[in-house]
């Protein structure tokens, strides 16, 4: 079963420090289907759950249109580690999205740190879900570099909020570019 997120009419994706229209949609496999059997069609814009990626990564990496994978709060990003390098193999992967079903669930911040600091992931890291003007600065400092701003939050305001603070205390975390 395929379930597409509705496309919003305003550009609310912050990427490379600018606003874009968000073309991404979440692939939600039917829970009764085996994860390696149900894949979205080979077309642009799909984000698949981590379990779908892990089960079907060989086929997915070979696609014309690379998919992104989604890390939910309860997922363990360490499962992405490849045995030989100890890092995430980003070959054929569009980007990694980390879901914030509610902005008060802060696990996604630690997932971002694990991906960036421990698993050597240097590709695009996108915050999706409950992404607020008010949390985007923290997200950027934890290593996110793209942000699907929550509907109802002014995307321009979110873009400006990347510079809410010009100074920071924690030396181990990114500066906002």
């Amino acid at each position, binding site marked *: 079963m395929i379930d597409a997120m509705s496309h919003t009419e305003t550009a609310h994706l912050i990427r490379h420090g600018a606003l874009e229209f968000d073309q991404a949609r979440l692939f939600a496999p039917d829970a009764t289907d085996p994860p390696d059997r149900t894949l979205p069609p080979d077309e642009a814009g799909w984000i698949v759950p981590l379990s779908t990626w892990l089960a079907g990564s060989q086929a997915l990496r070979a696609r014309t249109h690379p998919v992104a994978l989604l890390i939910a*709060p309860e997922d363990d990003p360490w499962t992405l580690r490849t045995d030989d390098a100890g890092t995430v193999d980003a070959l054929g992967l569009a980007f990694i999205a980390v879901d914030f079903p509610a*902005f*008060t*669930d*802060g*696990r996604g*911040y*630690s*997932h971002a*740190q694990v991906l960036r*600091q*421990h698993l050597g992931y240097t590709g695009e890291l996108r915050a999706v879900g409950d992404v*607020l*003007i*008010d*949390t985007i*600065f*923290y*997200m950027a*400092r*934890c290593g996110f570099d793209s942000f699907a701003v929550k509907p*109802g939050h*002014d995307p321009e305001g979110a873009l400006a909020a990347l510079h*809410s*603070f*010009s*100074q*920071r*205390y*924690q*030396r*181990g*975390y990114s500066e906002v570019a």
Partner: protein
Amino acid sequence: MYTYDPIDQQIVNERVAQFADQTRRFLNNELSDDDFRPLRLQNGLYIQRHAPMLRVAIPYGMLASHQLRTLAHIARKWDRGYGHFSTRQNIQFNWPKLEDVPDILAELATVQMHAIQTSGNCIRNTTTDHFAGIAPDESINPLVWCEIIRQWSTLHPEFAFLPRKFKIAVSGASHDRAAVGVHDIGLQACEENGVIGFKVWVGGGMGRTPIVGKLIRPFVAWYDLLTYLQACLRVYNLHGRRDNKYKARIKILVKDLTPDVYREQVEAEWARIKDGPGKIDQAELDRISRQFVWPEYDAAITQIADPTDALAAQDVSFAHWLRRNVHAHKVPGYVAVTLSLKQTGVPPGDVTDTQMEAIADIADDFGFGELRVSHEQNLILADVARHRLHELWLKLKPLGLATANIGMLTNIIACPGGDFCALANAVSIPVAQAIQERFDDLDFVYEIGELDLNISGCINACGHHHVGHIGILGVDKAGEEWYQVTIGGRQSGGDDQAYDSRGELRAGGAAIGKIIGPSFARDDVPEVVEKLVRTYLAARDSDAERFVDVVSRIGLEPFKVGVYGESDNVRHKAPALQ
């Protein structure tokens, strides 16, 4: 005390601007109630029973006189002329208007103050010993380390939305006055092979499930402190329960995983980050240390004639105040003085705008312009010349700040309770007042000796009832206020209390009080306290044996009998109240 550098000031100013914008968006319906709530809480703003309540941070309890004057100004301009010092060494204003809060925060920023992370599921104000830096039994001054933790935890990008609130306490003395055993993380500064470091206790806390913290690491060197804290917090952030707020504190995670498994996970994470950019280097330590201004003590002060003892011999009430409210100082000729905010008839911890201004003047005159807020909700002048004590006492008396009850039963710790707090099941302040009125004979209070009496209006335990020698907890039964009584709690112990009955090291000797039996109606509480006290007086070996010592020696049973009246025998032995 610490003074801001331009970076500190910039961060606080930008936080004020951020919150002003959030408030504007909320008032314009651009930010929903649900979205605004966690954001305002992280700026100390609750919506309470009567009005918003704003909790202002007083980092590790250190307050300058000019800051206190600004708090007085805020109390007068935006509140009803008073503030309430909390058990977290902070101050709360109970009557501000939401739309005024950005202006209040802007005013605070002008005196290097803020309300950042005084509430919400984030790292809260770090607390410490109210005698930090001056206590004779202190081996390591914790203040610089508190500031390092304050900076690290302020606007921490990874730990702003934890499963639940997170409190860190630091102690550097042999007697633990910071209650490190009942904090999410308790740090006891120590030295190993000439290197300063910390013992790390994790998972202590009060609230619904009171637990004494577990020793997770016996020594973390100072340069590893922040990476170790980061590892502790990361494991908690990822694995702490988020499905049930009553099981979301780190104490539940440590208990569920077992301390050993939690430790293994922390150590594995720490191994990956300990030598990363979060490691503290000497330059960073120096940078922060340089911003501290320390009192310039007068080395010749002991040459000045000290009339204190002679005056005490002539005036028994001055002598009592000296004994109860004056504390030893590591520098000869100096003492620390507690200004009691526990005068009978005044809610514990409350102070008016005019009192604040008078205290600020006194701090300038007698105490290098500095004050401490204690978790017992009193104020402390930490550096007073001993020969000026009588002069100081005469100034404090007319202000109602010289009640000689520190360490005594009437020095009650109490949360704001049901009169103010939306969470409370029952009132606290009227109960505190009724007890203070029952024990209004100071001679009898002195006869009873050292006794911590703590009252919380609900299970959240803001009044620290679990660690009161006598603890009183307001509970709701079918819509009525009832009060449950515990005895034998303590926030810390002497060296003999550092190990429990199984020989396990416990944090600072903290212990959780035990419930004596069925709860009581509000009007009965003073009588119950009196019965407990009578039982103690009849049972003690000498007046050196404190209430809490007798509880640990003879157990709960005689106190139960004394209160619930199954035997007249116990009561007949007790001396009559005067």
